[in-house]
């Protein structure tokens, strides 16, 4: 099962990749929204983990572009971000529309919390494992 990890900070990304590899997930890591669109196209992820604070185009821009393609509409997205104000909007308004399955505020999220969310919302994870 393949995760597209969109995380600008290399130190955090390495920690997430380490934890996800331990769980036998394949991880495609990118730091920018533009690269994430290309990776989504070429790597066909089963789930996306997204930081909203990205250099140049932010995570919200990525989401609106990403969800505009019918092929990717159903790919679940987990937000894992430092941006608490935008997070709140996603918790209340448009989460369902954009197939956002979970919203994590990074300072209050452990890596275990993130892994649990990923397992919970990865399509067919239960059958595969």
């Amino acid at each position, binding site marked *: 099962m393949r995760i597209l990890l969109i995380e*600008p*900070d*290399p*130190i*955090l990304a390495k*920690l997430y990749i*380490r*934890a996800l590899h331990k769980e036998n997930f394949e991880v495609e890591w990118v*730091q*920018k929204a533009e690269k994430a669109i290309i990776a989504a196209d070429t790597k066909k992820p089963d789930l996306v983990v997204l*930081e909203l*604070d*990205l*250099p*140049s185009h*932010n995570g919200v821009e990525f989401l609106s572009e990403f969800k505009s393609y019918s092929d990717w509409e159903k790919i679940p997205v987990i937000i894992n971000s*430092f*941006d608490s*104000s935008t997070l709140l909007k996603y918790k209340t308004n448009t989460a369902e529309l954009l197939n956002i399955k979970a919203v994590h505020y*990074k*300072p209050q999220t*452990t*890596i*275990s919390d993130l892994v649990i969310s990923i397992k919970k919302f990865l399509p067919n994870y239960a059958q595969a494992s």
Partner: protein
Amino acid sequence: MSEGNARLFAALAENLKLPLVQIAQSAELGLENTEYIQSIAKNALKIIDGYQMSLKESDSQFMLPLEPVAVPLILLDVANDLSAHAGMYDCKVVLDYSTRLIPAMANKAALKSALLNLGQGLISATSQTDEQHKSITIAAHHSANGIVAGIFSNMKGINKQLWYGGKSLYGKARIPIPQISGGSPAGIFIADKLFEKMSSTLRLTHHNNLPGLAATLITSSQLKLV
């Protein structure tokens, strides 16, 4: 607390979330490399030190005491202190200055703190670029008005608009400089304040065609006579 200090404090608080999350999550995974965690913590402490030094701003007349300073020695110190942090971000630290630089008027501790804070900000920014060989250059050169000392980077997109736009947005927007995300670039604004307190201004400039943020320090005429 003055409005300026409140804005800087908000930026600092936002900025410190990243190293704290890095430490917490490294500990969660049980990483045995304690030097790595120490380095993250040390860099966070340097940002706090710089902030405290700039706090005297509540007195708008307050200026840091200046003395003749050998800029190359400060640059060497900064390069040493930044090397571990840069290593974690796969970024190379390059030093570039003329050995003939004459002393400049500055506050030694504030100049070092300002350059460290700038360096951390630019290392983080550079790590998010597509450049294959990521590097920052700690440099100083003579100019008509004194000695220009600062941090430069080979990343694309550093321009005046970015800097002045960021300055006007800081304290209002969470990410005033989108090219430097993953936290607020408080260190850069702390550096700006510290240079202000040394009667100088942080501005966008170039060193050997590399863009970066630097300030012009007046040279020490006292020592020129010696």
